[in-house]
């Protein structure tokens, strides 16, 4: 039996003991996870520095604050989320109990990514634990130091059997995908996403796929360009552009292009000094393969800002490309790097058309002070999420579901959405073996009269207050008595 198979079987056995079902147990595990995030800040930060040259402040800001917030919310709200959810009743179910019961799915596989390893690996894990599942955690091998920290330290805090960490590369992931899970949560690219979904389909395993895409950023004439460009520069060049919801490319009027370039150049200098290579707050491209990919994307486009690079260090300076053509190399795939192309469009109509001709992205960014324009773009385009007048921040609001649509993915998480997404919402109808007279109208032998009564009773459900409920119950009893008397005097 392979190591992966053993880990999954152990997790399943542990799940079947039923211990993750109790709310107290889930809360204990979440509190342990919280302690881990607090006590191991140093190890987490060091690993991120080695993997992504992330500064300590950057680590908190972009990773651990977010995960801690999710854990806090889950601890606060778990009882509410896990409670039965009542639904509206109809006349026929007036005396019954009808509700939705959230239940754990079983064993969840969380496949993380390397760009924000804690946010996209431990983030979904919070939802999995809160929902009462076991979870196999597969961190990305590309962020190898972080992966080691997870492997070494998580088992010291969490239930080792219920939440095993399985490290490894492609081979290990393929071995994991042969096993049967009750849900697979994947963050990464579309190509691998399809492979994972197809592998999951063999076992009828539902998937949440947080994929990418080219997130457009439309800058309207009617906006504070200084602030807009500052926010865009921050959103684009944080983590060296390696963010699934980074603004991928800019759409703006040709007359604005020069000013946009100026402003972004100014902000790059403010954030990362004249020489970002030496700046401790500026990251690196994750590896040589991606470095080469990004260098080749620049081919055929005019560089407006920088373009400097250093292969030995996997360094590409914050770069802006101007007058980019729709068929340019850089517009054919998700950039996932510090290259910011500007594509000019003459109107918002053209911008909307441009966006709709392409696959649905994970995020759409709109910079405008015109509310009507923002509403229009929201209504006439489709994307995972929309952010107006800023970048990235919608990821941080726990009450907003985060996820993609179409090629940018399926499923969602954060806050209660993470809990619901990794639960089974079981419909429950509890009846009594009484009031049989009412049921008699549905039994054969069928008559036209019975059909008449059935039509009457099968009305749509109505929202009843408790007084209304009592009144309806009384009415039902009267009707039942009438039916019994008229048709069924045995």
């Amino acid at each position, binding site marked *: 039996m392979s190591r992966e198979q053993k880990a999954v079987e152990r997790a399943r056995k542990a799940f079947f003991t039923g211990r993750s079902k109790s709310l107290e147990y889930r809360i204990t595990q979440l509190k342990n996870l919280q302690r881990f995030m607090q006590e191991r800040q140093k190890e987490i930060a060091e690993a991120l520095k080695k993997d992504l040259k992330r*500064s*300590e*402040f950057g680590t*908190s800001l972009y990773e651990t*604050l977010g995960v*801690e917030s999710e854990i*806090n919310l889950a601890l606060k709200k778990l009882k509410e989320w896990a409670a039965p959810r009542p*639904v509206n009743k*109809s006349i026929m*179910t007036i005396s019954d109990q*009808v509700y939705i019961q959230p239940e754990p799915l079983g064993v969840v596989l969380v496949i993380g990514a390397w760009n924000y390893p804690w946010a996209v690996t431990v983030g979904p894990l919070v939802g999995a634990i809160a929902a009462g599942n076991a979870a196999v955690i597969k961190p990305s091998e590309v962020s190898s130091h972080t992966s080691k920290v997870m492997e070494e330290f998580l088992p010291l805090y969490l239930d080792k059997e219920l939440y095993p960490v399985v490290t490894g590369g492609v081979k290990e992931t393929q071995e994991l995908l042969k096993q049967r899970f009750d849900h697979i949560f994947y963050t990464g690219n579309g190509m691998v996403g*399809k492979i994972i979904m*197809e592998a*999951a389909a*063999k076992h*009828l395993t*539902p998937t949440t*796929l947080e994929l990418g895409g080219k997130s457009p950023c439309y800058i309207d004439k009617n906006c504070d360009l200084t602030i*807009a460009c*500052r926010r865009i520069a*921050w959103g684009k060049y944080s983590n060296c552009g390696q963010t699934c919801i980074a603004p991928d490319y800019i759409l703006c009027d040709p007359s604005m292009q020069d000013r946009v370039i100026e402003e972004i150049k100014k902000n790059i200098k*403010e954030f990362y000094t004249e020489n970002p290579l030496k*700046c*401790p*707050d500026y990251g690196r491209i994750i590896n040589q393969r991606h470095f080469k990919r990004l260098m080749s994307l620049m081919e055929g486009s005019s560089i407006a800002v920088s373009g400097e690079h250093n292969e030995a260090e996997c360094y590409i300076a914050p770069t802006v490309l101007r007058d980019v053509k729709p068929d340019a190399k850089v517009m054919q795939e998700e950039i996932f790097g510090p290259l910011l192309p500007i594509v000019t469009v003459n109107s918002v109509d053209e911008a909307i058309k441009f966006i709709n001709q392409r696959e649905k992205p994970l995020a759409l960014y709109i*910079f405008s002070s015109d509310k009507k324009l923002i509403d229009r773009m929201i209504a006439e385009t*489709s994307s995972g*999420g*929309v*952010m*107006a007048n*800023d970048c990235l921040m*919608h990821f*941080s*609001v726990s*009450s907003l*579901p985060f996820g993609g*649509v*179409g090629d940018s993915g399926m499923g*969602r998480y954060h*806050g209660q959405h993470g809990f619901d997404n990794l639960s089974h*919402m*079981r*419909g*429950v*109808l*509890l009846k009594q*073996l009484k009031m049989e007279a009412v*049921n008699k109208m549905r*039994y*054969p*032998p*069928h008559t*036209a009269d019975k059909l*008449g009564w*059935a*039509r009457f009773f*099968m*009305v*749509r459900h109505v929202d009843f207050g408790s007084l209304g409920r009592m009144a309806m119950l009384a009415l039902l009893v009267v009707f039942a008595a009438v039916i019994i008397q008229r048709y069924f005097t045995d």
Partner: protein
Amino acid sequence: MSSPPSPSPTRWFKALRRPRVEDVCVKTGVSVCSEVLRRARAAFSAGRTAQDTFRMAQLEALVRMLMDHECDFVDALGRDVHKPRFETVMSELLVVKNEALHAISNLKKWMEPQRIERDWSTALDECVVVNEPLGLVLIIGNWTSPLQLCLVPLVGAIAAGNCAIISPSETCTHTAELLHRLIPAYLDNECFHSVIAAAHEITEKVDLKFDHVFFFGDKEDGIKVAQAAARTLARVTLVLRVKNPCYVDSQCDINTTARRITWARFHNAGQSAVAPDYILCHAEAKENLLQALRCSLQQFYGTDPRESRSYGRIVNEENFSKAKEQLWRSGKVIIGGQVNEMERYIAPTVLTDVMESDPIMQQDTIGPILPILTVQDADEAVAFINSREKPLCVYAYSSNNKVISKIMNETSSGSFCSNDSVLQSVMVGLPFGGVGASGMGSYHGRYSFDAFSHKKSCLLRSTQIECMTVLRYPPYEDRNLSLVSLASFLNLKSQGWCTIL
């Protein structure tokens, strides 16, 4: 409300032998399906389905179609499965009508963007979740409830603003042909289409790229649909047939229990995906249950169910042969067991001494056959249920609430119903769907609308309060890290950690 006189069984048999759909109309091949898909996509891109007025008009047209052609639907289902008028109206037409009326009266509310409760960290922002149609939906129906399983999801797809292609099951040939004829006469011809697919062509159709695929059927086909959907990243709702267990306790009103089980198991001649597929009967209740079942069957269908106008027939030769095999090679026939090949008639049949390895326990139930297995107590029932795949429904009959709770809490299934059957699968207020091997996703009422929508998160800020956002910009090194501690503290108090961002 008077029904036309039902023909005698002999005339029904002749009706069952009428020409198959290949002779009535041409099946829709993959190339025609591509063309239809292209038209539907163009209609969607043009924004035809965006307005609530359009969606409501389509839903109203659907209701009119059901009302105008009630007799035609009764006739078609009568020819296909000898379905009594009562069952067609109750379990097919009224269920769909209910869904459509529910959607019409709630549509405006469902379409409203959901404003997210703000706390002080998001006080300056607007957070909304907008419900967006996915685009193009493919609905693959099933022969067990040919109208309901096509049209209930269609209601959800329309309400959510999608275009849709429905694929009624070719097994119920007359119903499929009727839907194929009526859909273009009532619904928008560009947005909504009907194609009749052979089972083996279904994955080719899924490969054509839809935004969502709804499939109701058996597990093997479900896997193929899921794999095809994966190739195009299409979302799926799969409702799959996995045998539904039904526990009967020693403490219960056995006559009422038997009546409700009889109704659920033998309506539509046992051709249902949501009826109890097998009974786990407490040893003490078994004899009484058998007696009570005999009584109920007598009450419902008379001495010879073949003569009853309320009893159906098996849908086709293939299923009839399979069901006959299951009957003869499983356990012992204790009630019923009579068959008539010419009419594709199988009497309501109860089996005892059934082993888990018998065909009736290993294959999908496709006829009026109810196996009864004996258990010593609820624990044994739970262990048996959990040793098998998660079913669509778990049923339990008992007057002891502790027993009901035990069965419910210690098993997992798409849905659960105590002291009755089937009803939870047609309620507009409860999500209905599977889990594990019985599928993924759910539908009915609001849940259909949600299944066919994308919930788009929108965070709308202004560019006014830039001083607040300054703290997140580099350079960081000379930033006082106590600000980070402040952020962590504020974190605990708010729903979003973008407090100072």
